[in-house]
């Protein structure tokens, strides 16, 4: 029992550390990607290739003046960013970061907890994530912040529906709600290639809907209306400064990392990779390779997020709502019907 606890604590600390590291370096990657797309070099003075830039940014955030506006609601002003950060980190508990390791005659699972309602858990955490933005925006007592908060909440509620419907189609094919099992199922051989029966093959439309909704849930361009600089100054974080602003920004990048991880596990096989059982490697090596593959997929998705951000312009607010309610939800429903029919026919 105690050894089990130590395993879990080590794993939790490692996952938190890796998540925060990824969030930290996502800010650097974002600036580099933006620069490269715009024919610039980006930050390259702090350390080699500017790799120490995130640390410099972090130090700057800590040293800035902490300012709380006079008319703000003090308690809620502090509560907002904390909720954002907490909910962003909570989801990492159910993501399978790798297959099991066999160390010291014991089997160690690289998933913190395999809830048998894992997908619903992710969904619940995502749905309470909006409170951070709403509370922060309202407590600032600033009309731009309030508008940002209102936009964030209506956008997130609208896109959650389409997201849930696209996941339902996926669950109909997998038949389980546990993320660990969903990833494991994708390791079964297909066409003689082991570890390649990824759900993207069965659910291309569902994946597209999920991807669009993930962009909207993370408040990334082209759906970053809650924080659009040129109409709302800064949206919900207009009044924030110092590390509280840092928390909001950090939560955004953490959300991006987590949603990339969820997309890779739900649709792109998680830690599975093609030919994983046919190479004849020892189990532990395959596990480590699988984790490396998972992170490669995550990095690719994060790159996609950034690539889209520096390519597409922002939607107008009515276009955003029309797209959510009139395109994505009907498409997701059609996807469910098609999936159901195919399941009946192929059975």
């Amino acid at each position, binding site marked *: 029992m105690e050894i089990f606890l130590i395993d879990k604590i080590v794993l939790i600390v490692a996952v938190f550390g890796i998540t925060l590291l990824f969030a930290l370096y996502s800010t650097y990657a974002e600036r580099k990607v933006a620069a490269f797309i715009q024919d610039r070099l980006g930050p390259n003075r702090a350390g080699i290739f500017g790799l120490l830039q995130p640390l410099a940014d972090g130090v700057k955030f800590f040293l800035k003046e902490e300012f709380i506006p006079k008319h703000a609601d003090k308690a*809620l002003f502090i509560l907002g960013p904390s909720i954002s950060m907490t909910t962003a980190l909570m989801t990492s508990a159910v993501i399978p970061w790798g297959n099991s390791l066999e160390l010291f005659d014991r089997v160690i699972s690289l998933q913190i907890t395999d*809830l*048998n*309602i894992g997908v*619903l*858990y992710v*969904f*619940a955490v995502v*749905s*309470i994530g*909006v*409170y951070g933005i*709403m*509370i922060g925006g*309202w407590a600032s007592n600033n009309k731009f912040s*309030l508008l940002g*908060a*209102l936009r964030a*909440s*209506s956008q997130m*509620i609208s896109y*959650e529906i389409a997201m849930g419907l696209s996941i339902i189609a996926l669950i109909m094919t997998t038949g389980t*709600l546990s993320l660990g099992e969903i990833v494991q199922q994708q390791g079964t051989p297909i066409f003689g290639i082991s570890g390649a029966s990824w759900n993207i093959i069965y659910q291309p439309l569902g994946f597209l809907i999920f991807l669009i909704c993930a962009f909207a849930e993370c408040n990334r361009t082209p759906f970053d209306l809650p924080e659009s600089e040129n109409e709302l100054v800064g949206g919900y974080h207009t009044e924030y400064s110092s590390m509280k602003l840092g928390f909001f920004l950090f939560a955004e990048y953490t959300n991006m990392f987590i949603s990339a991880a969820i997309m890779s596990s739900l649709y792109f096989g998680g830690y599975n990779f093609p030919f994983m059982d046919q190479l004849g490697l020892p189990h532990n090596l395959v596990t480590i390779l699988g984790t490396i593959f998972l992170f490669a997929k995550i990095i690719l998705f994060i790159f996609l997020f950034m690539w889209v951000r520096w390519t597409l312009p922002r939607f107008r607010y009515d276009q955003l709502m029309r797209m959510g309610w009139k395109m994505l939800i009907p498409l997701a429903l059609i996807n469910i019907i098609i999936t159901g029919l195919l399941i009946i026919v192929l059975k």
Partner: protein
Amino acid sequence: MDQLVFLILSIISIGAALAVIFSKNPVYSVLFLILTFFSIAGHYVLLNAEFLFIVHIIVYAGAILVLFLFVIMLLNLNKTTETGKSMLPKIAGAISGGLLLIVLLGAVKGLNQAEAAQAVNADMGSVKNLGKILFDEYLLPFEVSSTLFLSAMIGAVMLGKKNLKDH
């Protein structure tokens, strides 16, 4: 262990529920209601009702209370003061509420239950089990509730629409 958790959760839920009805600012009321709902979700976990636990959080904390908060922020209701200066209706309300509590507790006390700790089926609240029952025995009510949802949605849209004659 279980009883300690139950006690802590109960204290949180009762305290937060009292804060809901006595805080001046509606935004604070909503936030305390969220706290109450989370503690009730904790009770569901304690009772092994995992599906209801997650649905409770998704439906109440994730949708209904966001709507409340949204309406309060949209109408900017946090400053509205309540009219009716006289304290008499309030005192009467509080007293009748308290009386109801006493009656309920008296009824519970009169139940005379000699129950010891019980063994229960831990798998009952799982998604699989509830899904089977929901789509087997309760299929018709399920469909009827979906019709209810549809009509509620249409009703909300019709109510929320501005009067067409104004334009």
